[in-house]
């Protein structure tokens, strides 16, 4: 009798090998080795014999049982997917309409805001003389400002 800690492990490994043997994955030599190992485990050897005698389980469910039935159900799946595609397109349209509504509201608010601003301050869009002068005097380009001041001095001198 083997030690308890290895006994369980060995049994697990042997069970795995029995399954490999049933699936035809062991070579002749490997199977012979397995059989000699099973001599120490008569219960597992009995299991090995019983499992080898099991019928091929695929024979219980040969495919396809009915080609006509399969075609019918496959058509149903294709129909469901087509419906799903249409639903996804509708959802896409919904998204477009929602975004359009959102942007339309934003655009209307912007237009209304601009109109209100113009109505409150009519000079908002006008180019009056003061703004032109201040622009010339306090211009970013010093040369423009200097020539304008000289021009004003000349005018004053001429008046004198």
């Amino acid at each position, binding site marked *: 009798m083997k030690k308890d800690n290895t006994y369980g492990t060995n049994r*697990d490994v042997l069970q795995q090998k029995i399954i490999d043997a*049933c699936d035809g994955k062991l070579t002749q030599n490997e199977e012979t080795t397995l059989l000699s190992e099973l001599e120490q485990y008569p219960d597992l050897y009995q*299991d090995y014999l019983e499992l080898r005698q099991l019928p091929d389980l*695929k*024979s219980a*469910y040969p495919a396809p049982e009915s080609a006509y039935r399969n075609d019918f159900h*496959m058509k149903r*799946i294709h129909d469901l997917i087509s419906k799903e595609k249409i639903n996804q397109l509708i959802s896409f349209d919904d998204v477009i309409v929602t975004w359009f509504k959102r942007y339309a509201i934003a655009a209307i608010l912007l237009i209304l805001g601009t109109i209100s601003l113009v109505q409150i301050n009519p000079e908002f869009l006008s180019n009056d003389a003061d703004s032109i002068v201040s622009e010339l005097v306090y211009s970013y380009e010093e040369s423009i400002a200097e020539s304008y001041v000289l021009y004003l001095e000349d005018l004053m001198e001429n008046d004198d």
Partner: protein
Amino acid sequence: MAGYSIEEFEREIKEIYPRLNRAMTAYLAGSGVDPEDIIQEAFLKAFRNLDKFKGGSGLYTWIYSIARNLCIDEFRKRKHQQNRSQIPVEDFELASDIFTSETVKEEVILLRKAISELPENLREILVMQAIDEMSYADISRITGINEQTLKNRTFRARKQLAEILKKMGISHN
């Protein structure tokens, strides 16, 4: 590996459907859950989440795992712990006449019933491994169980199946 386009996915249905149908029919036999409902829902769910499929596992394995999760949800909803040994044999009746001999037909019905009597955790592995011929690597991806443990479960499943068949009086000497 890239995912599938909608057109490619639709083309694959023809290949995947018969195999998935066989596996789900075996997995759900005697449960009262209609395999067709599960398969349709699985394909629809896969279609909706096609952008999430990265192609690491095969498309079949991915759809199978979706179908399996749907089955588990359905079992939970139905508090699926009925005694399957009490399900009448007629419930495993065959849908076609591909079995010419009555004896063979009868044996197939009993074999189906025996498989359905296995506990859920053993039956699902036996269906994937022995009926659907999935690799242990793919079964491991679907179930999250390592390959060695899967082989031990396959051993237990086949052993229990042999005992059930013995009780039914079916011997394959």
